[in-house]
């Protein structure tokens, strides 16, 4: 897989969402296989958390929702990405944003930001390696 996927995930897991989006977008632009949809889902996820960092809840909710929709076909894992935990966390963020829609942005009670975990399938399960 292209090294930009590695770099993009590294930025995402470091909370540098704009940079993550930027790198993944560069990869997505030139990648023409059908599963480019998953790359776009990761971009949506990065942009969603970028908007959350900047208090744009409407933009965050919309982007995370698009990420969840596009990621659904690739659950629970694809390539070497464990997508189920990321998908679950994004859905949790959406639900909590909806529940707290009248709360000030800086007072929102939201879970820890998810990481994109990587691994590979072994007998009896999926081995996370990062």
């Amino acid at each position: 897989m292209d090294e930009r996927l590695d770099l993009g995930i590294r930025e995402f897991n470091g909370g540098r969402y704009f940079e993550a989006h930027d790198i993944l977008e560069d990869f997505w632009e030139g990648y023409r296989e059908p599963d480019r949809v998953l790359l776009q889902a990761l971009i949506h996820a990065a942009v969603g958390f970028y908007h959350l960092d900047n208090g744009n809840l409407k933009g965050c909710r919309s982007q995370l929702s698009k990420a969840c929709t596009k990621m659904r076909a690739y659950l629970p894992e694809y390539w070497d990405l464990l997508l189920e935990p990321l998908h679950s966390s994004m859905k949790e963020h959406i639900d909590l944003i909806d529940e707290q829609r009248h709360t000030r942005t800086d007072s929102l009670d939201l879970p820890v930001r998810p990481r994109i975990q990587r691994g590979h399938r072994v007998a009896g399960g999926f081995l996370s390696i990062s």
Partner: protein
Amino acid sequence: MATFITEECINCGACEPECPNTAIYAGGVQWEFQGATHDAISNDFYYIVPDKCTECVGHFEKEQCAAVCPVDCCVPDPNKPETEDVLYARAKQLHPDRAFAELSPATSRFRK
């Protein structure tokens, strides 16, 4: 409908060079039309000038900004419904020196 950019925009700028009508501007940048300049429609993120948007009618089979937007935030504006005839007439007005061929599926999203 003119196309517009929602607040989901992350200001990546991918859309701007794709517009055949130079209808897209960065937030805070004044827009130009027929020699006159106008205040920015958005100061926060990229925006599309409705008077310069033809939804790519006359040029491409679909809106090029939407095609390249990585976050799907270039969408039809439900508050500005416009017919293919109106959009095609605007394309001709914007490009008076260009000879437009008859519209086809390759040059109008309405012909799909």
